[in-house]
């Protein structure tokens, strides 16, 4: 089962490489997405999913991450079919294969219990996403892809160094060096403390680069700004959460070693700093896709902040991961439609999206209200939970800063989004042929429905997933 989850999309990626028809090939992607989603749902009903002699195990937080990834991937895949049909004369062979291989690697990150294996999967996601970023073949997307590839590779190289430091912490502690998660957590109290701390810092910087936490976020606005919207969705809702999962695993080793404090402080400071950076750069941001990138920096900050605060904050962070991932899908996919209809992504030229593309415009507006924490959408609930945890933990300074930055970001993002959706579109924009159709708006509608549902009522199984994930992270005294 654990192996099938990875092998099925990988095999389909090979099939995608073999299919000669540019028109039929994109159908494989939603097919792969549906198969993956079905397998994930089946796997989540199983009590224990493991493979390769314990190297692959679907544990607490990974179940939640994988469920989210699979839902997002399926909906992006439906969108991808419609998207690729708009470019019938451009070969989508590499794009389709990379997309399927990408989800296989995300699954491998979620399941991998060996730090080396997790690392290999993470680096492979960088390599498979680079060709997807460069699909538009413009000079700007080339620049974005180069930065993404180089910064991502260096970040991930640091993560390898950190993993080795962790292994060395075991060696210095007089243990047989092992990079298996279970061994490290079991033997955590005997790990050499200086090596453990250095390892955590390097790993946090390394995987934090992939997650896009400030100040390691510099690739993000470029990559999200230039990538096709569905790739933005996969990065902002899938890859970044997998990197977060990796950081959580190292946090768990630190807390099992009886030394969670310094990791938590690092997460709180980085979290607040990321929100601050996002707030500054979102104010007067003309490019609405870059704005979404900064929103992603902000919400990655909120995730680590929630875990850093601890207690109910961990539950809040897990819920927020779900809310943010789904809402980012709404935002990126609707922004991509608007971008295409206007041939521009700056507020200088884009006006009146509600008039020009009623569904996509409405989705962008709803997504904006959702992501900035307005009730009754899901993110309101999770951000409120994190705020509550900060106050009840007597972190008044953190709570005040958190609230302040949410307000700043709301106004900054609001100015851009409202300019985009309101007003009258220019005659030039009216003249382009792109119109909303089923495959480009249906994924967004489903996603906003899910976000709304999470704000009003969390179904039992989903609640169970979130609680299990949070329970797996609680510090045991």
């Amino acid at each position, binding site marked *: 089962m654990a192996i099938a989850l990875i092998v099925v999309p990988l095999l389909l990626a090979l099939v995608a490489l073999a299919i000669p028809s540019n028109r039929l090939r994109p159908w494989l992607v939603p097919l792969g997405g549906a198969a993956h989603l079905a397998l994930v749902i089946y796997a989540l009903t199983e009590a224990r999913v493991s493979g390769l002699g314990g190297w692959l195990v679907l544990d607490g937080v990974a179940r939640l991450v994988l469920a989210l990834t699979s839902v997002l991937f399926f909906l992006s895949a439906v969108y991808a079919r419609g998207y690729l049909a708009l470019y019938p004369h451009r070969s989508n062979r590499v794009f389709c294969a990379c997309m399927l291989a990408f989800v296989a690697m995300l699954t491998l990150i979620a399941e991998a219990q060996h730090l080396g294996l997790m690392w290999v999967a993470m680096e*492979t996601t*960088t390599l498979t996403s680079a060709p997807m970023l460069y699909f538009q073949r413009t000079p700007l997307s080339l620049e974005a892809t180069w930065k993404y590839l180089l910064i991502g590779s260096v970040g991930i190289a640091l993560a390898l160094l950190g993993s080795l430091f962790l292994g060395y912490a075991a*060696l210095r502690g007089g243990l047989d060096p092992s990079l298996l998660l279970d061994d490290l957590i079991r033997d955590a109290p005997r790990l050499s403390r200086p090596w453990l701390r250095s390892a955590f810092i390097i790993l946090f910087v390394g995987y934090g680069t992939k997650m896009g936490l400030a100040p390691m976020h510099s690739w993000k606005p470029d990559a999200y700004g230039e990538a096709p919207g569905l790739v933005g969705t996969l990065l902002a809702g899938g890859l970044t959460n997998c990197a977060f999962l990796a950081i959580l695993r190292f946090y768990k080793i630190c807390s099992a070693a009886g030394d969670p404090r310094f990791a938590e402080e690092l997460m709180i400071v980085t979290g607040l700093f990321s929100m601050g950076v996002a707030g500054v750069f979102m104010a007067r941001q003309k490019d609405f896709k870059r704005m979404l990138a900064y929103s992603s920096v902000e919400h990655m900050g909120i995730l680590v902040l929630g875990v850093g605060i601890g207690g109910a904050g961990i539950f809040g962070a897990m819920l927020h991961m779900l809310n943010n991932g789904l809402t980012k899908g709404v935002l990126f996919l609707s922004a991509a439609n608007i971008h295409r209809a206007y041939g521009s992504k700056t507020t200088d030229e884009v006006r009146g999206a509600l008039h020009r593309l009623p569904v996509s415009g409405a989705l962008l507006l709803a997504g904006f209200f959702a992501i900035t924490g307005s009730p009754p959408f899901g993110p309101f609930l999770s951000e409120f939970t994190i705020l509550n945890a900060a106050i009840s933990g007597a972190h008044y300074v953190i709570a005040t800063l958190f609230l302040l930055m949410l307000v700043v970001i709301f106004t900054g993002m609001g100015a851009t989004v409202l300019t985009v959706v309101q007003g009258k579109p220019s005659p030039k924009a009216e003249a382009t042929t792109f119109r909303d159709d089923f495959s480009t708006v249906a994924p967004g509608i489903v996603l906003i429905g899910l976000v709304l549902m999470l704000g009003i009522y969390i179904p039992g199984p989903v609640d169970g997933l979130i609680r299990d994930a949070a329970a797996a992270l609680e510090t045991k005294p």
Partner: protein
Amino acid sequence: MLDALLVTVLLLNFFVLGTSRLRAVINATALQGVLLGVLAILVHHEFSARPVLIAVGAALIKGVAIPWLLLRAMRDVAIRREVEPFIGYIPSLFAGAVATGLAIVFAGTLPLAEQHVGSLLVPGSLATVLTGFIVLTTRRKAITQVAGYLILENGIFIMGLTLVEAIPFLVEVGVLLDLLVGIFIMGIMIYQINREFASLDTDRLSHLRE
């Protein structure tokens, strides 16, 4: 013997920091890759097939395949020299010396396992990683930046030599393959950058900013 090789690796770091000829930079990283292969065999006390396989694989990928990819990219885009790095060669040599010193001090503050006390493995690894960083951040040409990334990876490979028992075969192979494919994709990108911008200066890649 081990330390003599590591000193050579460190000297190659300085050579890369001080030269402007791209071919020399690529050759130096290639030689570093081959030395790492030899190191990988030396750290094992008994001979068996697996470590030899990894060592030969690493030497072939880092010392032959990747330099070949880079030299080909260099020939395709017809450039030979790094021009005007962000900081000059003498200052970057100086920065390299400071970084190496810092690496030795930092490694000295960390408690080492007894088999590594007095060995250059840990400080050598950190110094090489830092050198890679300096090259990555101070050079303009895309090819030199890739070389910097390679030097960084070489440094990490040296750290990996302290933990040979903990890293399974599959993972070692995965790491090397990822590196190879990564450089391959970067090579394609270099070609595209040159075609698109008629230059390999990553300075030209500065349209995306606030």
